């Protein structure tokens, strides 16, 4: 890297106009990230006509700011309403919502903003130092490696539902079945489409998220609304305390790099990154039993990971012209219209653009942490909103969000079906996350499995060939059995200790 082009990039990024785009993009991203269904991909797509008249650098800055802004915003509704705004905010419901229910909503919002900020900074630093070697590392991921990565994600999420493992498996299987809807890419055969052309692209996982979380939550509350006492919910302080910070510090620092690396892999993205970092932290934590009950580190870790994943996703986009996520795919289209063709030549042909962009991400994260902390005081008021006002608004947003996905009323029926499914899950105490994650990764997982087997002419040995595969298999086994092993060791220790006590 050339120091002078870097500094030049910093100056360009700090130009008033560009600074304005960062703030607008970050703010817009935070808002769309918060609203269920309206994600960064939609926001960027809607803005494409606006970018037509813009300077390419500003357009790129604006679109990227929306993208990582949404990572900040996505967890707001996870924490306050138990309804994630996007796939990458699902993990934030695990501990963020319990924290809010314990009256620590303000602290939860603040710590997640700070975690996102640090995760973002780690990733920007990673981008500056490691963009090219990491891009080359990502290429080593073939169908076999992708399949194993997704298997790891699913096994990680199953291991979370300890105590109700069978229910977790059932939820995951339903999710995997739902992911088989639509055209089968390898053969072009239509599966479960019932002659409805709209279903040929499968069921959008965002409909599943909005239906199960948002609509399900509303329906569930409808059942219990009369029993809820009209107590004023505690909001708590808007800043976290020393102990919470002490617990979150290392998880945030560990999750940043994890999220960054997963983000660089095309197709993996924030959902997988946040899930893997959450389970990692839960498993190495000494207080793993507090995870799911409102542990601050359980919120901080995935928040750090998903934001750094969104920065990581820029690497394959800019160094190879390969979009790694839905949002970056839309960004690529917009950049091409502006006459910029991201790819291996971009760093040489237009270094000014690249370094301005990198610096804008750095500034953007600073702007966003300020925006989001300033918003905490306002957002926690949502908890004060009476249910009869709040829930209709959530329903309205859920339907609007669903419509923007593909402008089709058929999705409304799916939304309602998944809403009732979500209600059933809550009534019978099934974990929701395994289902949603299975819908997100299911179809890619299947296609990658079949591609891997096809490329090896039918031999399953393909899954044990590369060091990356072996590593992923070991991690998968660990994620399934580590909690059990730990439990055994702890029991033995306790036994041992009590025996010693007896002996003495």
């Amino acid at each position, binding site marked *: 890297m050339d120091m002078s082009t870097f500094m030049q990039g910093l100056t360009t990024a700090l130009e008033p106009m560009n600074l304005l785009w960062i703030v607008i993009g970050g703010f817009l991203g935070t808002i769309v990230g918060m609203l269920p269904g309206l994600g960064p991909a*939609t926001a960027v797509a809607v803005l*494409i*006509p606006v970018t037509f008249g813009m300077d390419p650098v500003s357009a790129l800055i604006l679109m990227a700011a929306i993208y990582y802004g949404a990572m900040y915003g996505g967890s707001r509704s996870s924490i306050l309403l138990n309804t994630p705004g996007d796939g990458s905010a699902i993990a934030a419901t695990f501990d963020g919502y319990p924290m809010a229910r314990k009256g620590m909503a303000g602290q939860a919002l603040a710590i997640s903003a700070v975690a996102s900020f640090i995760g973002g900074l780690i990733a920007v630093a990673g981008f500056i130092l490691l963009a090219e070697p990491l891009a080359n590392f990502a290429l080593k991921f073939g*169908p076999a490696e992708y399949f194993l990565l997704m298997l790891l994600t699913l096994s990680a999420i199953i291991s979370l539902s300890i105590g109700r493992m069978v229910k977790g498996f059932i939820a995951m299987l339903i999710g995997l079945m739902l992911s088989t809807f639509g055209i089968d890419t*390898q053969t072009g055969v239509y599966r479960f489409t019932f002659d409805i052309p709209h279903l*040929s692209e499968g069921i959008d996982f965002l409909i599943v998220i909005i239906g199960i979380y948002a609509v399900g939550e509303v329906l569930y509350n409808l059942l219990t609304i009369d029993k809820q006492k009209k107590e004023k919910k505690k909001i708590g302080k808007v800043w976290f305390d020393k102990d919470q910070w002490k617990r979150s510090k290392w998880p945030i620092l560990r999750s940043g790099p994890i999220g960054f690396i997963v983000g660089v892999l095309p197709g993996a993205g924030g959902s997988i990154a946040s899930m893997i970092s959450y389970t990692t932290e839960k498993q190495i934590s000494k207080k793993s039993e507090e995870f799911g009950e409102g542990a601050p580190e359980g919120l901080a870790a995935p928040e750090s990971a998903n934001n750094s994943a969104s920065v990581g996703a820029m690497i394959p986009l800019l160094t190879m012209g390969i979009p790694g996520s839905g949002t970056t795919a839309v960004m690529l289209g917009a950049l091409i219209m502006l006459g910029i*063709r991201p790819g*291996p030549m971009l760093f040489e042909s237009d270094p000014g653009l690249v370094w301005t962009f990198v610096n804008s991400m750095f500034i953007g994260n600073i702007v966003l942490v300020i925006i989001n902390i300033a918003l905490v005081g306002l957002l926690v008021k949502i908890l004060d909103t009476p249910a009869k006002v709040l829930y209709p608004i959530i329903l309205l947003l859920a339907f609007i969000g669903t419509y923007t996905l593909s402008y089709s009323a058929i999705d409304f029926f799916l939304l309602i079906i998944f809403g009732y499914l979500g209600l059933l899950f809550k009534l019978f105490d099934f974990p929701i996350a395994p289902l949603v994650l299975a819908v997100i990764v299911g179809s890619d997982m299947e296609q990658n499995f079949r591609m891997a087997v*096809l490329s090896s*002419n039918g031999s399953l040995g393909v899954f044990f060939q590369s060091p990356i595969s072996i590593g992923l298999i070991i991690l998968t086994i660990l994620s399934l059995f580590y909690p059990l092993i730990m439990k055994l060791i702890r029991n033995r220790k306790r036994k041992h200790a009590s025996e010693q006590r007896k002996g003495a």
Partner: protein
Amino acid sequence: MKKIILLICILFLAACSNSASGGNDFPTKNVEIVAPASPGGGWDLTARSVQKLLNDNNLVDANINVVNKPGGGGEVGWQYIQSKDAHNLAINSSLLITNNLLGTSDLTHKDFTPLATLATEWQALAVPVDSEFKSLEDLMNQFKKDPKSVKVGVGPALGNDDHLSFVQAVREYDVDPKNVDFLVYEGGGDVVTALLGGHVGVVTTSLSEVKEQHLAGKVRILAISSEERVEGLEDVPTYQEEGLDIVFPHWRGIMGPPDMTEEEIAYWDEKLSEMVKTDQWQEVMKNNDWEGFYKNSSETKKFLEEQTKLYQDLVNDSGLGQ
């Protein structure tokens, strides 16, 4: 909250006042260009470019909106304009033909009024730069020897232009396309990643997906489906130069609902032919690596009939036919 309501009211008023403009015989109301795909994709960007150019050059005396109707590989959007009038156009491509041949749709080009073919991309066959295959002939001879020895990356679906252009190439070498193993990726970008990572031996994709990688010395394009060598890639031969009788355009066009009047067709012929003459359109094509391929309504109709015959043949040979 009050501000939001006010904002909505303003938007509403703006929408009302806009729709009141116009006045000639045609168009009498807002024009709608349907992109049968989600925002951000190729069809969407084509639709938005056409919208912008018609607007900027004051070619059409009405408001032009782009509407996204994704689903079913174009089916949802195309079905939508079938029952509309000449104010509703839709972007199309060869999927209009192949969807029907593959049995996934009842619609054919005969169910619409073709208005223009706008531009084309070319297909490219590429291998990693360190591949043992230095020429198209090397590669094809390997397929002849053992069709399963080299895996072919393609996306996002079998039966598309990427796939069928390859089918046309191998069958000239008497290789049965049914015996070739295709790995189907989600899109052109994924196909190139797989090639760079060495997970497939060769990819068939749009030229724009591999052009930069070729220039950067990371992949080698063995052949291009154009008639003449492409500007900027003078070192890459065409299929014809390599001895195969193949010119394979990956075109995109625009069409209207069935039963349009002569006047309406003439109207769009005039406007669209003027649009493709603008400098801005040249710029759009350059940015997208497209090439001029304009055909007016009647030429397009004839072109679509020829294409249907060719595709019918290729789909049958690929083993995907009904």
